[in-house]
């Protein structure tokens, strides 16, 4: 369970953060939420998809990293298989806390918090949060910046997804894979871009999409599905 606390020099002068990769930090997950701003970098190495939140039915943008719970095919020990790591992992163990209950996070009503329950938080090794003068370290400054990106990125991604839904541009993916022993597995609940409807957008909508960067994002997301085949190969190799 997360235990977010506000960060201050008094409490956290000795706190160190382990910044490596690994299952011990909870990174053995089979999908990772991402923001639309990352799409260009992600599309080169990950299959992007939309998944529904089971509690709200709302769509979120994610990358698929495995085929079953606990399986992250990008994580090999303490090494990450590709160059780009999604912000959602890189910003841990920090979270954005909202000061107004139930309000949408903006730069005015949010604070940076640290999840004290995270395995990254310790006093022996890693990056410090403050320099000797009590000022935020370079590391902490970077994290603050990253979380700012994430927050505004989340809002932008929500608007992006709403627009896609308005134009019927999201459809369910029929995914079934064949594993090493010939076993066929079918997956429900994965969604991607409806390319037929994308191709049929009116010129007005097309122009609006292009100007907002949506058009590019749509094609990149659609094309990224090809990476699923890579994941299948990685899984077969590991079996």
């Amino acid at each position, binding site marked *: 369970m997360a235990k977010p606390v506000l960060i201050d020099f008094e409490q956290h002068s000795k706190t160190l953060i382990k910044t490596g990769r690994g299952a011990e930090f909870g990174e053995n997950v089979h999908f990772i939420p991402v923001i639309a701003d990352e799409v260009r970098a992600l599309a080169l190495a990950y299959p992007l998809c939309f998944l529904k939140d089971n509690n709200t*039915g709302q769509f979120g943008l994610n990358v698929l990293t495995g085929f079953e719970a606990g399986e992250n095919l990008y994580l090999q020990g303490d090494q990450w298989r590709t160059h780009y790591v999604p912000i959602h992992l890189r910003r841990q163990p920090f979270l954005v806390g909202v000061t107004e209950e139930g309000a949408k996070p903006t730069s005015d009503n949010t604070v940076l918090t640290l999840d004290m329950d995270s395995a990254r938080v310790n006093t022996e090794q890693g990056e410090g949060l403050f320099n000797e003068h009590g000022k935020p370290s370079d590391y902490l400054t970077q994290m603050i910046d990253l979380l700012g990106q994430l927050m505004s990125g989340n809002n932008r991604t929500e608007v992006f997804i709403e627009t896609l839904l308005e134009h019927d541009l999201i459809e369910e993916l029929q995914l079934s894979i064949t594993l090493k022993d010939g076993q066929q597995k079918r997956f429900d609940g994965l969604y991607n871009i409806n390319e037929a409807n994308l191709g049929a957008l009116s010129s007005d909508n097309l122009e609006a999409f292009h100007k907002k960067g949506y058009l590019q994002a749509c094609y990149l997301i659609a094309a990224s599905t090809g990476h699923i085949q890579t994941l299948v190969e990685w899984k077969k190799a590991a079996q």
Partner: protein
Amino acid sequence: MDQAIKSIVIVGGGTAGWITAGTLAAKLQNEHADGFKITLVESPDVKPIGVGEGTWPTMRRTLKAMGIRETDFIRECNVSFKQGAKFAQWVTGAEDDFYYHPLVLPQDFDSTNLARHWMAHPFEQSFSQAVSPQEAVCETGLAPKTIATAEFTSIINYAYHLDAGRFSAFLQRHCIEKLNVHHILDNVSKINAAENGDIASVSTKANGDIAGDLFIDCTGFKSLLLGEHFKVRFKSCKDVLFVDQALAIHVPYDTDDAPIASHTISTGQSAGWVWDIGLQNRRGVGHVYSSAHTTEQRASEELLNYIAQTGGKVNEADIRSIGLNPGHRETFWRQNCVAVGLSAGFLEPLEASSLLLVEISAAMIADQFPATRDAMDIVAKRFNHTFLYRWERIIDFLKLHYMLSKRNDSAFWIDNRDTTTIPQSLQEQLTLWQFQPPWHNDFEHAVEVFPAASYQYVLYGMGFYTKPNELGMSQAYQQKAGALRQKNSQQVQQMLKNLPDNRGLINKIHQFGMQRV
């Protein structure tokens, strides 16, 4: 005449008028460029009947075809999910006497008849418990899907409970704003005949004469066009189904967050039965009874008693009395006029058939929409033939509920078993079913209103005995049936684990809406 049929005039609003308008408009819009016109003229003074709040699963398709979002429908029409009907105190009248008619077919119903297997050990589980997971889901008050399930799709089959008044208004808005239906709010003062006996136009108080090629009578019990103008005779079926009066009332919940039932509850009374439909913010409860077997006073007492026993508080003065005439017109389509809804006929709401008949009437008119006046005569003949059959089968199926009862605590129940009150067609089926369970080819048409499965649910729910076949059961059959019943138990476990409760899901739908995909 090869005059093209382009202009449709629907007389009367309510759920019949607007479902018909929406279904026709959506179909014609999809298939034809333009050139057709749909006008609905309704009286500002005549109120719709205001009851009729249970649907069939077909309503999902009907709404989707009109381009309606399930999210909007649920948010605006006080809708809840219906997964079947629970019949309480219909068999013996004891407190714990009940059976379910769910909306899901028995396991593998396409090819396996589980009835025989169940009958070998009928006391282990009730029939509906053994062959479908829906009874368990309903008894637990769970919803048929989750917030992540796409609109109009299900995890387990479902229909709706809805607020009739809000539903008409909702459909009206949608038809006018999205489907180009022309709306005239005015009273029809006269019906003008053409030379050949067709209706040429209807005269209105302030909007002149409204001419049309096809007229649809949705004027309710009044049956202004078919019954009054064309004088098509009404064929009563009170000799079969005795119920001819209703007392209806709305019952509030104790709290905003009260649980919502997953099914319609029908509870047998001394001379009729009480319906109980749970919407989002209130219940719709009513007592339908036979005036030949009890008085309004007694019927009202029974209704109030039921409400008190089920934890409701009402004002006796709010009870509405509605006279019913069970039966239907001898034909439904005369000349260029077809009746849809109460104008065509009425049967007690025991299996929520009224709205279904509206849907399938509108669907048939849309599917077979006559291109010319000559074609219309042929379509009309088929429509009449099909719907006469449908009404008769519905009457049979409703009567089945009564003739299988074992109650003898009042004349109503005893009289219902008198063979002179049982249609020949039904008697013949029951004779057959004494020796073999209902199966697909027992029924004439490819598409039946009540499939064989529905008959199984009622027969075996009410304790009907089908003699085991002397040829016994093959190993293969026993194994298959055993496996299917195992599968059923597993599905029950899964569903009880994964499905939310109705109130919880409805709250989420208000908060988040549902996805179209």
